[in-house]
């Protein structure tokens, strides 16, 4: 085999690896939004801003108390669950059952929540870019494959691998919760038919509070996992809200299994696109796919909404 061919194979494999690893993180981000969409039929446009809040919790846990980002998940998950539940209980639920001029005013409310969060962060932490300098930020595993007399050297960034692993664990945990527990059954029942669930004695208001809490905790976890890899600033949320939205649509609005697939597809599309077409259009690939899916597969990659 010629060195050029080996180089091309290495490029393809490495690009696919990069896409899948970052896609795992995207899945967790999309999963939270999809869950909320499934149960409440609203797009949470404060999703990225919630992630930003989690990133700042992680950052301050590290700088003030020297808590490792992965350990801080123990704080971030409950804190973000509480924040999400409070937002739902005291803000969104108040609008949910009110007749108003605009039918989707809960969505507008989430836009407002997002703006308040990012602007509070701007006031409190200034617009500066911060990063958490963990010692393992650049840790890498190498895997050399001998192929036809050439070596193909693949590399795996350790924080991304760990993030991917934790993302898988969180996803599995969420499915166990949804499938095997009473709370999960209540959530699924509410998603399938809110009125029927209410008639069967499910406290659907409480279910919405729990769901929003779960969705916030998931995106918060994604934020924490992103901290060792990336950097943070108050307005980091918006592009990630857009990504979560694309993933949710790709997966079929409100379909949680679809969100996982959607995240991986988005990660791969960005990665392949920036390697083979141009890095400058990286964000465009997601949106192009978004439009194509809406036109040709209006129900998403996996079809109808299913929590």
């Amino acid at each position, binding site marked *: 085999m010629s060195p050029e061919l080996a180089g091309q194979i290495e490029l393809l494999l490495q690009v696919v690896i990069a896409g899948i690893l970052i896609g795992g993180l995207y899945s967790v981000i999309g999963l939270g939004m999809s869950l909320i969409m499934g149960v409440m039929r609203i797009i949470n446009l404060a999703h990225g801003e919630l992630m930003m809040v989690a990133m700042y919790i992680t950052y301050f846990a590290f700088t003030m108390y020297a808590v490792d980002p992965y350990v801080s998940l123990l704080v971030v998950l409950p804190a973000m669950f509480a924040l999400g539940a409070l937002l739902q209980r005291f803000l969104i639920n108040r609008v949910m059952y009110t007749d108003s001029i605009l039918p989707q005013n809960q969505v507008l409310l989430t836009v407002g929540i997002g703006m308040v969060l990012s602007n509070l962060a701007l006031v409190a932490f*200034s617009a500066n870019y911060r990063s958490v300098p963990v010692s393992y930020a650049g840790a890498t595993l190498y895997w050399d494959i001998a192929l036809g007399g050439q070596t193909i050297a693949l590399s795996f960034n350790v924080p991304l691998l760990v993030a991917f692993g934790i993302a898988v664990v969180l996803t599995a945990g969420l499915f166990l919760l949804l499938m095997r527990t009473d709370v999960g059954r209540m959530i699924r029942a509410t998603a399938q038919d809110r009125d029927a669930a209410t008639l069967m004695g499910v406290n659907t208001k409480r279910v919405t509070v729990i769901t929003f809490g779960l969705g916030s905790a998931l995106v918060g976890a994604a934020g924490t996992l992103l901290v060792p*890899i990336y950097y943070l600033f108050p307005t980091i949320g918006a592009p990630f809200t857009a990504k979560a939205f694309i993933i949710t649509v790709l997966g079929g609005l409100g379909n949680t299994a679809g969100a996982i697939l959607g995240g991986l597809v988005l990660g791969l599309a960005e*990665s392949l696109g*920036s*390697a083979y077409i141009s*890095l400058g259009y*990286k964000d465009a690939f997601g949106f192009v796919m978004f439009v194509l899916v809406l036109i040709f597969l209006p129900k998403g990659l996996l079809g109808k909404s299913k929590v």
Partner: protein
Amino acid sequence: MTMARRTRRGWMETQARRGARLVPAALGLALVMAAATPALAQFKVGIPLPLTGAEAKFGEMEKQAYELAVEEINAKGGVKDQKLVLDIQDSGGRPEVATSIVEKFLTGNKYPIVVGEYTSQCSYAVAAVAERYQRPYLVVTGSADKITQQGWKYVYRLNPPASLYNLGVWSFFKAVAKPTSLAILYENTDFGTSTSQAMKLWAEANGITVKAYEGYQAGAVDFKPTLQRIKSLRPDVVYMVSYLMDASLLMRQSKELDLNPRLFVGGAAGFTLPEFLQNAAEASEYVMSGTLWTPQVKYPGARAFFDRFRQKFGKEPDYHAAEAYAAAYVLADTLKRAKSWSPEDIRDALAKTDMMTVFGPVKFISWDKFTNQNRLDTLVLQVIRKQFETVWPKEGASAPYVFPVPRWRDRK
């Protein structure tokens, strides 16, 4: 209960109304006092700078350098017996904010001259405003070529244009590295585009193949797909133009991917800040970068400035600090020579500037498409044992260069 509450509210309203009546009175008094005080012997300079946002580290360093210089100038009696006073405002690195700050400087504060800004986009926007109001503007860091190519009569630039930032790097390439191929990766901002375009043209004119020429949007999380493609192209040299956060991510990810050109070269900006050494850590080792200034330059006062800055602020200044420091001295010199402090006279004095600063000789000349542009040699530095060392030109180098650089996996 209700009664009590109502009474209290009534009392508060009265207080509020009384307060409202007091405010104009106090304002009036303040105005009278301001008018009554004899003209304070001070000259105010308006400087917009990014003190928050992605470029905040650069803005902060320049602010400190201006303050250091002005402190020294005032200690020696100021300018024509007047104290220089800085009015530094935060633009957040956003051109629209910089524009409104400068409009306020020129129309509200009536400052006769504007100095500073950091990014090319902001400097370009500010230059347009200054030209419209016919007030002189001294560009200190913004380096996109177009800023001094508009034939503007009030815009003077202290730093060299971006296309000449690479002079030192080119001389190193010709004399030592002799690369046959190059991969160029740049942030698609004014500065990034100007610098890399110049690099591409130069490479092609000198028979060097440009194997990749990629612009990217600031804020990408993962550069690995692109870096991997560059790896598969096996270029001799990888040349990158980025600000701070991206510069660190690019080097860290190059190390992860085991991307091994014979040399990594940065195009100034993010690659010369002390924070780059911290954020990129061991991935910054042996990275070269073009730069406009290092403490080893032979201009009078350069070393003293470096020491004073480090002593006062506890960190090492890079070329950005030297630019700002020199700009303050150019301003003081101009004001001393100006017939009066009207915008026109200040502009005429600025045009005749011919002085030596810690940043090098300053003289505004016009050539090719450039007008009122200072011309300077540039240098090359390299990170060696976690320190910036000047490695080129050879005379004045603080350490011998390392070339070709060792492969990532062979490093200890």
